[in-house]
């Protein structure tokens, strides 16, 4: 396999900023119009790790939905990592992200999962309570990100690459 590539799927409700996160981090090979047509857009990013190795993430940005239909489930096949994205300003998107995680577990029981709470730049309008985040961190990795300002984005992908490399 070329340079230890791994498939990572980006899941989250509509408008949570998945595509912006990818756009912030990776080279855009394909148009965003694939998201509205095919329902997915694939990009890749080579992530340098602390030990000097390089892990390539093939990122499947799956169109925003609160649930996974058969097509989206087929997009998940073979994924090693899941980046679940929620909008901090909309608590409902956090529930959607958790639901998506639970659904995808049926297909990917061993995939690494990281929850990204996006729109950190609007933290003053967040509906997600800090206590909720504390509780979530007990069961999974949670990273606050801002696609607009870039906060936490690289950290999130590096964290995923590190876990996949381990």
């Amino acid at each position, binding site marked *: 396999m070329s340079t230890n590539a791994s498939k990572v799927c980006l899941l989250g409700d509509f408008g949570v900023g998945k595509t912006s996160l990818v756009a912030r981090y990776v*080279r855009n*090979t394909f148009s965003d119009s694939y998201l509205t047509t095919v*329902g997915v857009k694939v990009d*890749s990013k080579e992530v340098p790790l602390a030990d000097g190795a390089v892990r390539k993430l*093939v990122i499947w940005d799956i169109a925003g939905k609160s649930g996974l239909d058969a*097509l989206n489930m087929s997009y998940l096949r*073979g994924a090693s990592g899941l980046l679940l994205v929620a909008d901090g300003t909309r608590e409902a998107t956090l529930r959607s992200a958790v639901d998506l995680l639970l659904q995808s577990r049926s297909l990917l029981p061993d995939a690494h999962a990281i929850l990204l709470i996006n729109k950190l730049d609007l933290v003053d309008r967040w509906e997600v309570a800090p206590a909720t985040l504390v509780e979530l961190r007990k069961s999974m990795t949670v990273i606050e990100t801002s696609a607009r300002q870039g906060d936490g984005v690289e950290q999130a992908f590096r964290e995923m690459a590190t876990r996949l490399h381990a």
Partner: protein
Amino acid sequence: MGDLERLKHLLIADEREVLSRVERRVEALEQVNAELASQLPSLVRAAPVEPMNRALANPVAAALGSAVQRNRTSIVDALFPVIGPIIRKAIAEALRGLMRDMNRVLESTFTPRGIRWRIEAWSSGLPYAHVVLKHTLRYQIDHVFLIERDSGLVLHRVSSPGLPDLDADAIAGMLTAIGQFVRDSVSGDGDDSLEAARVGEHLLWIVEGPRASLACFIQGVPPDELRSVLSDRLEQIHADMLGADVDPEDAMETVARSADLDASLEPMSLVAASASMVEQESPARKRSARWPWLLALLVLLAVPGWHFLRVERWNEQVLQLRAQLEKHPGFQLSTLDSEPWEKLTVRGLLDADAEPLAPVLDAAGLDGIRPEIQVRGFVSTDDAVLAKRARRMLDAPHGVQVDVKDGVLTVRGDAELDWVTREKPRASLIAGVRQVDWQVRGHDPRTAAMAAARAELHEISARLDKTRVIFLRDSEADADAAASLGVMASALSRAHALATNSGIPFALHVFGYTDTPGTDQINLDLRVARAAWLRDKLRENGVDEKLLEGAVMDSGASGKDSEFRGAGVRIEFADATQ
């Protein structure tokens, strides 16, 4: 413990111990056997793969064969959902290939380019398909991706040199996603998959396997054999995965990293392999592709050829018929209108004495085409017709020969004078006769009849002279008298008839004969009596009465002249020469 028990203990204590151990072991084995059925699946899963595969290969194959024989229906029912789609896919692929071939042939057959290629194929001896392939199947393989089917990750990648770099993982991922999207959108739960996509000169072929797919990025138009080559390569990769002595989960990665894969998926290697396959299939294509064209060409040539030969045959037969008609005596051919194997009209002039035309037309062999005859009468000067006309008009008797040559009528032979006198002047009046050569000897039939009669009378006379009635005594004829009388009566009746018909007068003499003894008077009386006896007997034998009445009863013969006793007759008539 009683004495008996103590004794038993002393005697068979060891055996009891052994028996007890055996019973415990049997119970343990039975327990293991009882639990084996439930433990067998997990034991099989836990067993090392390769030894287990080797151990189960033969029993599983034998069991499968036995199951197919005994439970064919169940096996068929179980395999049907699998086999059906495979068969449909194979048929669909074959039909698509057929349609492509037909389209290609149809598109190229009737164009100037197609005609040029066909001429090239005929002149070079190569099959047409080969020439078409040579001109149309120019292509280049840019990239070959080996993609893990589920994840869409690139397992291996080979690209032609000099091409700009591309994000193979993203492309492979997107390709996989689109393939899944297309499969989900088009075929639902089916196993069909995206096999090709084309944008202008760029073509993407995808060959899918159970665990990995090959994506081939092509410029131009590749031959179908390239897909076969890609399928072969992918099958080999899967075979290598099965043969790899590693965990199945890692087999794909192991194979993908093997050095042989670069050579196997090298674009130039794939192009060469497909070209080789095209070459190998050429003879078969040549055989299968040329005969329909030869057949079509044969039909195209046969139809006008057959028509040409048929018209030629008709024309030849009409030509022969024309020659026959032109030679036909008494017929003057004007026109011979023919429509091959449809109609034939004969127009001309026909002499009434000419032979009919029907036998000539029937012998022409026009296969049921009945010629229409339109003739008008005329007088022919053909020798044959003139001869026929002359014979008809002259009514030539037997002994007269009638011939015509160059318009000269020759009549030769013997004929009655009356006919000669009547017909000779008419001969020169026969239409068409230019000159008459009359060589017929005329004769009077009465003269001939008299001569014949006279000759016969001579013969009768000679016969009568030799016939005599012998007398034993005076008037007692011998035993041969009756026969002699019959001969005499018959000859006399014939002579009388000849004389009457021919007008030749003759005289009948009846003689009596005596020998020398006796007196003259007695002998005379005897001669008279014997002559009279003979006349009476002749009358009794039917000789005409008038003839007998006019007979000369000659009894003048002297006994000295006679040497026998008897009677006889003689006829006398005037000879023509006298």
